[in-house]
């Protein structure tokens, strides 16, 4: 019964919010592609076929092959897995870090808050892509590093949001009453502040998935991707050498990036609209 209600509530929200609806449909498509990659992909993405730089429409290779004879369509399909994983893991790292740090700053206030705020200002003033580049280039382009570094350099936005949430929540009656009943500060933070203030961070995290995917694509495009996995950025990087004759290699991989990033933008923006009905009324 209760489950049914949640389902109905989700459907109602989706019916009203066209951005969110589009985003969710696209996301389902993406997840299916990632999940069933071995079934959908016509070829093994790592196998080198004899036809090098064969154009789209070549028998057996709908989107053609790349400079080493790999099937571009299969590479793109498997690349979905990499991009989604990087996006979700990096955004989660930044979401969790941001929530905890911002929550502590806002809820505890005082010196802790001042210290954390200064720290966030410090981060705000460092060019983050520069930093990511240095770390990945100098310490090695392992996919784990890439995810962690992207996550570690993007948490400040979340922290800022959570801090504001915590500051306003801690004045609310239910938090005051929990305090009066002697609940410990950490318990209040994890049981009341974070669960009640997390929604804007969820929306922000969805947006961060997009930017993480873009960051990874950018890194790969500079030749700093993990050579052991297929990723869209690497396909574009590889295809660049065969431009303009082998245009299809880079083109289709780029379309896949746009499609995926768009999906998460739509969901994030849709969530924001659901969360702040005032903006919705304007539209």
């Amino acid at each position: 019964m209760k489950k049914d209600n949640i389902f109905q509530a989700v459907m109602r929200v989706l019916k009203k919010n066209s951005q969110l609806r589009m985003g969710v449909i696209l996301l389902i498509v993406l997840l299916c592609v990632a999940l069933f990659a071995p079934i959908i992909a016509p070829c093994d993405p790592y196998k080198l076929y004899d036809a090098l730089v064969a154009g789209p429409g070549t028998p057996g290779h709908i989107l053609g092959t790349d400079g080493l004879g790999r099937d571009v369509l299969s590479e793109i399909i498997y690349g979905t897995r990499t991009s989604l994983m990087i996006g979700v893991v990096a955004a989660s790292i930044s979401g969790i870090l941001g929530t905890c740090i911002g929550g502590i700053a806002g809820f505890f206030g005082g010196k802790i808050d001042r210290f954390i705020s200064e720290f966030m200002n410090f981060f705000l003033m460092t060019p983050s892509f520069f930093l990511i580049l240095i770390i990945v280039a100098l310490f090695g382009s392992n996919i784990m590093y890439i995810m962690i570094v992207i996550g570690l350099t993007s948490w400040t936005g979340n922290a800022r949001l959570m801090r504001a949430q915590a500051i306003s929540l801690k004045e609310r009656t239910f938090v005051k009453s929990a305090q009066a009943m002697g609940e410990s500060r950490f318990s209040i933070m994890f049981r009341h502040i974070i669960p009640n203030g997390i929604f804007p961070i969820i929306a922000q995290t969805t947006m961060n998935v997009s930017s993480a995917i873009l960051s990874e694509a950018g890194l790969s495009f500079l030749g700093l991707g993990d050579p052991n996995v297929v990723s869209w950025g690497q396909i574009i990087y590889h295809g660049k050498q065969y431009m303009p004759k082998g245009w299809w290699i880079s083109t289709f991989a780029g379309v896949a990036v746009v499609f995926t990033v768009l999906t998460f933008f739509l969901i994030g923006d849709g969530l924001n609209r659901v969360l702040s009905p005032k903006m919705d009324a304007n539209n």
Partner: protein
Amino acid sequence: MKRYIGKRALSGLLVVLLSVCFNFTLIRLAPGDPIRIMAGTDNPNEEMIEALQQKYGLDKSIPEQFVMFLGNVAKGDLGYSYISDESVIKLIGEKIGPTLALSLTAVLLSVTFGTLIGIYAARKNGSRFDRFVCSISYVFDATPGFWLGLMMILIFASSLKWFPTSGMVNLRANYKGFAYFADVCRHLVLPISTMVLTQTPYYFRIARSSVLQVMSEDFITTFKATGMKESRIFNKYVLRNAILPTVTVLGMSLAFLLSGSVLIETVFAWPGMGRLMFSSISKRDYPVLTGIYLVTSVVICIAMILVDILYGFIDPRIRYD
């Protein structure tokens, strides 16, 4: 006010110092030895390596190196490139011009287009124009600039041959004077268009949503109730209030301008800061890398202070105390 600027400058200096220190340490902790890259051959002569290490102070500990570096910076010396042996200041100086020509132009064009379209779309909120521009902005927002750049080259340079594929000038032509300027402009068209297309949506969204937000404020109803013309309400009161977020964001973009756009500069082989940075990373050219980092941090810091001060002038609610 003066006290505020002083305070901000001091804390800015601290941030720059910390940031550079962090970066300095990070770079030197990284695996990969620049000396071995410099020495070149697979089996370099040990004496040569020692000589090189001594020359560049790499035989000392990292804190010692950092203190040395700071001392030199205070004297206005950012050191010399390991690779080309040229002074870092000169290397950076050569690249600032091209980067500004590209990025500054792109940012200014984007903020102008984005804000104007955003304001217009907000005024026509819900119209077909509004919906159309909103969907377009979504797509370009999701497009990676480097890929868009490749596509631009593919279409407008390789196929249509309207513009050159890459670089800043046609080196073979050896242009002088106005012809040189015109040639640079021709080379600028594609990279700037790429950047404008991917950055405009950002300013568009901010302008549109802040105009909509201001239009729903209570004071707009007050002015409507007084019988004031809507055009006057919009031009005088809505715009003045709605421009504040755009100023903040523009300030941030300008601050980060110098670090350049590595990706766009790479795609178009533009000889700017971004590419200098990237090449010095791959070649482990520590002095250049640290130098760029220092210059960028200082610029960011100064720009942010300037934005804060400017903000105080346009928003009376901000107080400096």
